[in-house]
């Protein structure tokens, strides 16, 4: 579905991403993890078109989309939930959701989906006519994801979905992502919270100083001594996993 080859992104003369390659197959959930400043967000920004790529090729569904403007990519099926949520605080929840469907023309179907989403997320339903700025962090994240879903993306990309959220809320977010994966949505996720991300994803890539230093399935990574010690710190006790994951999350 998504294929990135030899991506290079520079800020002025400073290379932030130096030759990153990865892929996400249809229906897969892939995570990109790594320390702060590794170039994770920059990679996403370059894919989405917010930042120009100095070198490299990005393909979505086989079509080359390198350097496409974000609004064009959305119309091609890629939806990004940006870091820090970025919901429109001065607009109402409903307006935020409607904006998610900007690229769609089937008004009736959109309305049905919005109604369904408002039911699925009771908090959003309750506050539907309030300005989105009044929502809590977790609710805003729900709104951001709901908004991204309304464009009926082939692929959902999330930048640091757990950032700034309480652990319980993070659980809810990943539960939601799990549901989406179950429904066949392809997911790419960038996370500093390596444990959560790797446990959730089918495969992961580890980025460091703008390069991919490690990649593999969750099982492989969790069995990799270096990875566990450098990036995982303490694996959450209730994650239910120390060795290769067998059950579907």
């Amino acid at each position, binding site marked *: 579905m998504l294929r990135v080859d030899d991506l290079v992104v520079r800020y002025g003369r400073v290379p932030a991403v130096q030759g990153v390659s990865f892929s996400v197959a249809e229906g897969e959930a892939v995570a990109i993890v790594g320390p702060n400043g590794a170039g994770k967000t920059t990679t996403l920004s370059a894919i*989405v078109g*917010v930042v120009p790529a100095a070198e490299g090729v990005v393909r979505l569904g086989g079509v080359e989309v390198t350097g496409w*403007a*974000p*609004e064009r990519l*959305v*119309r091609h099926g890629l*939806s*990004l939930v*940006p870091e820090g949520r*970025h*919901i*429109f*605080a*001065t*607009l109402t929840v409903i*307006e935020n959701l*409607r*904006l*998610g469907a*900007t*690229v769609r023309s089937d008004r009736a179907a959109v309305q049905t989906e919005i109604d369904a989403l408002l039911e699925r997320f009771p908090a959003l339903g309750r506050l539907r006519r309030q300005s989105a*700025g009044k929502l809590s962090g977790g609710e805003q994240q729900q709104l951001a994801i709901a*908004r*991204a879903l309304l*464009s009926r993306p082939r692929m959902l990309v999330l930048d640091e979905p757990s950032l700034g959220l309480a652990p319980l809320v993070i659980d809810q977010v990943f539960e939601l992502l799990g549901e989406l994966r179950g429904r066949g949505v392809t997911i790419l996720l960038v996370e500093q919270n390596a444990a959560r991300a790797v446990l959730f994803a089918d495969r992961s890539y580890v980025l460091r100083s703008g390069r991919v230093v490690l990649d593999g399935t969750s099982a492989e990574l969790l069995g990799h001594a270096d990875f566990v010690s450098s990036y995982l710190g303490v694996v959450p006790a209730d994650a239910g996993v120390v060795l290769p994951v067998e059950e579907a999350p």
Partner: protein
Amino acid sequence: MNGTLIMQSVVDAISLGSLYALFALGIALIFGILQLINFAHSELVMVGAFALVLMNDVPLWLRILSMICIVVVTAVVMERIAFRPVRGANPATLLITSFAVSYLLQNLAILILGPEPRSGSVSTFLDESFQVGDIVILHLDVVTVVVTIALLVGLALFLTRTAIGVQMRAAAEDFRTARLVGVRANRVIATAFAISGLLAAIAALLLTAQAGVVTNTIGVNVVLLAFVATILGGMGSLGGAVLGGFLLGVVSVTLQASLPLELRSYRDAFLFAAVFLVLVIRPDGLIVTRAQRGRV
């Protein structure tokens, strides 16, 4: 101060405030989305004024309609040619660009039309007035207030009820994220310029009706006053711009009425010194809305 003078001042302030609110909206609309203070807005007014005056023999409704079309087209073309290449540049560069466009158009008018002022009346109806007690009210004043209110209502409806209107508000709050949900940058920006063109056209109509004579600098004061109103009301917020416009109308009339005779001609100096002070104390303008934080 007697009651009549106060009432007359109130009437003047309302009418003047409406006009200034109109000017300010034109500027604030673009500023909200692009962080650009469009100095060339004054030349949109100039184009409208010249268009009106040069079409003297055409029936009024047609003159107004064509004038509006001409100004709106000019606004959209202006954006496409002069502002799109510098989109995303730092605010000072944007300001210089708009300044350059303004200078270009002002002098293009001289190049094409010659330096002599053109005169023309819009409608004798507007020049007439009626009286309520001792207070004189020009038909033009009433039209100004009515038209402004109509435009405000229309704009409010547009921004809340239409898809592109909501997109514009989203873009004004967070351009990048708006693009990430698929809002077409070019379309939203062109629409904003078209609307500001409409506002400029109406301003041109009202100014020409008031002045009767059009020169290439007819719009210059518009932009300066709009800029003051926007600062007073809070930059980037449309509600703030309108508020700023009315506030400016009140301040203007008050200064005019209360300044001692010798200082009256310094009114503009006081006004801009006040703007300077406001910028020192509150760089975002007097009324800061949530969307403003960290903007300037």
